[in-house]
């Protein structure tokens, strides 16, 4: 079992690192988590983003949730907002696609066009 004592050690580590950071959480990953999103599988998608981003220690990225984006038939929907760039909207996401998006888009800076909303109905 994990213990609360471990958490305290993690806290101390985080506090000592926190002063070294710049432009904190500049990139946002927004997951639609209304009833439509949840029913379509948004929860495991959001968890995949959170886990993958934490494991790669991408400290400039934050994962947040939002309500219904308005195109329920394309859920789970994820928007990626990078300052100074155009918003990218991914549709019909899965945990596997989420991990690919972290690697390709967030780490390498190359959006995966085939998963975006523009390609959805082609």
């Amino acid at each position, binding site marked *: 079992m*994990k213990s609360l004592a471990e*958490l305290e050690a993690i806290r101390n*580590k985080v506090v000592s690192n926190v002063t070294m950071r710049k432009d904190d959480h500049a990139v946002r990953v927004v997951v639609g988590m209304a009833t439509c999103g949840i029913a379509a599988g948004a929860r*495991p998608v959001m968890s995949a983003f959170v886990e993958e981003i934490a494991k790669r220690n991408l400290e400039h990225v934050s994962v947040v949730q939002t309500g219904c984006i308005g195109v329920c038939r394309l859920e789970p929907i994820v928007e990626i907002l990078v300052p100074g760039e155009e918003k990218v909207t991914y549709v019909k996401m899965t945990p596997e696609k989420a991990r690919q998006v972290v690697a390709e888009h967030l780490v390498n800076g190359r959006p995966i066009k085939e998963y975006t909303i523009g390609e959805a109905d082609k």
Partner: protein
Amino acid sequence: MKEISLHILDIMQNSVAANASLIGLEVIEDEEKDILSFTVTDNGKGMSEELIKKVIDPFTTGRTTRKVGLGIPLTKLAAEMTGGYIKIESRLGEGTVFYAVFGYSHIDRQPLGDMAQTMHQIITSFEDVDFTYRHVVNGREFSLDTREIKKILGGVSLKENDVSLWIYEYLKDGEKEISDNKK
């Protein structure tokens, strides 16, 4: 919705939307009594008696972008399919208690699903809200109180990568420990 834990996530989002500062979740699995139940208790803005009657209707919603809301009707249907029911008690300005019970061994009962993922997600998404969680499987219990965790963290965010991962692992360990107690 394929899992009861997804209904729970959806119901807890309602509590967040009702501006609750403290949300309690209790999940009970009791194979002897043949029930699976969950209770979401919040101190949000509450509902009038009139609204309580209306929320089980799909054509009522708190959202402003359209006029249908399916969260509570879906949960009601899932519970009733197994011989169970839902109950909502609420007072304006005081909060709401949402209770759902399912027939444990009923063939149509959805699996509980991933409670660790559900709790991790809601806890880390809404840091300004405190959560208490209690899951009991045939008498064996796992519980978590975010007030306790936030006290240890002393202002460090739950979204910090290492902290977030630790909370997820802690929940997964706890869930595994009690699920071993199933018959």
